């Protein structure tokens, strides 16, 4: 099952997919069991699962005759990485702006 990589931010932008991740965070589920929680067609559920899979949020394993969806870490890590990065980025930049402005004010006096 090879898929084109999907932006993890886009993947969790959808409330149904977030709900799926939430359910999977409690336990691994077969695709059928997961689908039972949603009022949508089986192909629609499959489409969401594919997106979550492509974005690295879940893996799909064949156990016995069933396909199981299992939560995976890579999608989550990527999001957290960007948020952490820009959080720190802005703190550093704002401090720098403050320093530059204060320095400038001192030179004028």
């Amino acid at each position, binding site marked *: 099952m090879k898929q084109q990589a999907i*932006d993890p931010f886009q993947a*969790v932008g959808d409330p149904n997919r977030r709900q799926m991740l939430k359910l999977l965070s409690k336990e691994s589920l077969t695709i059928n069991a997961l689908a039972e929680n949603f009022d949508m067609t089986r192909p629609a559920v499959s489409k969401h699962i594919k997106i979550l899979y492509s974005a690295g949020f879940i893996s799909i394993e064949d156990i016995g005759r069933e396909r199981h969806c*299992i939560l995976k870490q890579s999608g989550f890590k990527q999001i957290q990485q960007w948020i952490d*990065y820009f959080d720190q980025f802005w703190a550093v930049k*704002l401090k720098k*702006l403050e320093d*530059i*402005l204060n320095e400038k004010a001192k030179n004028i006096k």
Partner: protein
Amino acid sequence: MTKMIKYNWFFEQSPEMVWKYLTTSELMAQWLMNNDFELAPGREFMFKSNPQPSMDFDGNVYCRILDIDPLKKLVYSWKIMQGQGKLMLDSIVTWFLIPKKGGTELILEHTGLDEWKNEMLLQAMNKGWDQNVRLKMGNLFNTK
């Protein structure tokens, strides 16, 4: 609306001075990043910073001015491409300037990251998952 990144910063300078540093290309380069910014509605511009190879980030930020309210508010899109022109991050940066006694309060909001702010996701991420997520799941979420 939830905000993913928000900073309130106080400056001892006037809103005019802070605005100048937010909207003049050469001055922005001094504290933010090299850029080809020009204050005009709808204007597209770019920031260039050091690449971050660990994040597959080439250091370029692609922006477009979305809103200008002189001395009060500035909004621009903030996009990052990864790999072969794939849109990685599609977000919005908003600056608010509020005149205060003895200076200016500057509020920065980096949004568009909103949708991702889901308690469950953050909690899970903060716990620092290892590869054996399945085994740990029980412990993580039973503490709720």
